[in-house]
């Protein structure tokens, strides 16, 4: 049976150093996925490194943000007729050997989106106390909206076309698409599942966790959650419709 078309999306910003090792791991995993690196206006050789390692590279003319890079990947996947996508970070914290574990349940129709979680099993992922507090806060707020996800900030996910069609809309955040996006998806009838994956800390300091950004992140996320949770839905079961049409 021919496998439905799936695309692997890797948003990358100045990841020329980390990318080769990741690409090698992906190649070794022999997944048969089309690999797309979205270079978010890097100042280093991310684009050429990605291309030299067999990926299709989409390069933003300037830095638009992590969420925008992901969305570019979604738009490309839609244009290419992909039915499923997997997304993972370029900094090497996600293990490509877990891709199959994420993708298969989505391909089998068990859920619309599968999130690779650091916290379901003891994966040894280290997190500072402030981040743990933030995670706890957002988990709690997520639960208020019926979202029960242990790792809503995980960038390691697999999803089907119905979700991609939802994510290419203008509401999708250009910076941090996290729990707010999942809440919106849940409210529209999307089925969200998690599976434990192995995750290491990023090879370099993440931009989201430096300076005043964590404060802005919490502020922005609370605002987005309020917005996502209070929006009036035109057609609550649109995702179901989309899946039927698909």
């Amino acid at each position, binding site marked *: 049976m021919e496998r439905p078309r799936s695309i692997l999306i890797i948003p990358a910003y100045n990841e020329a150093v980390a990318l080769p090792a990741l690409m090698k791991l992906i190649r070794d995993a022999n997944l048969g*996925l*089309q690999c797309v690196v979205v270079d978010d206006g890097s100042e280093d050789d991310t684009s050429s490194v990605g*291309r030299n390692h*067999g*990926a*299709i590279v989409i390069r933003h*003319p300037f830095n638009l943000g992590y969420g925008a890079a992901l969305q*570019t990947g979604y738009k490309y996947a839609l244009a290419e007729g992909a039915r499923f996508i997997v997304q993972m970070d370029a900094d090497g914290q996600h293990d490509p050997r877990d891709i199959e574990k994420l993708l298969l349940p989505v391909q089998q129709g068990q859920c619309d989106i599968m999130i690779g979680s650091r916290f379901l099993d003891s994966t040894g992922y280290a997190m500072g106390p402030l981040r743990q507090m933030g995670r706890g806060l957002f988990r709690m707020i997520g639960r208020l909206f019926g979202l029960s996800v242990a790792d809503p900030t995980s960038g390691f996910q697999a999803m089907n076309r119905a979700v991609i069609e939802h994510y290419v809309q203008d509401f999708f955040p250009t910076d941090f698409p996290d729990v707010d996006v999942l809440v919106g998806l849940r409210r529209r009838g999307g089925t969200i599942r998690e599976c434990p994956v192995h995750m290491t800390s990023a090879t370099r300091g993440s931009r989201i966790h430096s300076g005043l950004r964590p404060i802005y992140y919490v502020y922005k996320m609370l605002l987005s959650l309020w917005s996502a949770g209070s929006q009036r839905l035109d057609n609550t079961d649109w995702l179901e419709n989309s899946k039927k049409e698909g």
Partner: protein
Amino acid sequence: MDKTIDLAQLRQLFLTAPESEATRIVAFVASMALLIVVLWLLRRGKLREEYTPIWLGLSVVLLVISMRLDFLRWITNAIGAWTTSSTIFFLGELFLLAICLSYAVRLSSAFLHIKNLSQEMAILRTHVDALRRELSASTTDSDSSAGGNHHDAPGAAPV
């Protein structure tokens, strides 16, 4: 001798104090200048028509007030201010707040357009590059007498 003065009387004093002719002239000239600058910018194509109503409206309002300062005194009285100058500052700040908010909304919308355009452009460029590679590969194939050489577009193969 009692030197205290009733506050209501003091306020009335401020409100009824006549403006000097210089104030009227300066206000009129400034309003006219604003009107002329807005029209000039419009004529030079540096200000889009859709942005003009608020500025033309403001120029006309300022012009009318500069000719009829008693309007300003009436507003001052109505909002409970003491002096016409504080009314001008208050209304001016309200106006600036409204303008800032309006431009923040327009900027957000413009950012969305820029983001969508950049994404579209990046995807199209990837498609164009792939087509270009395919074209050069097929040209090489047809030029090659050996035949049977298949050229995959670099980066297009599944991994």
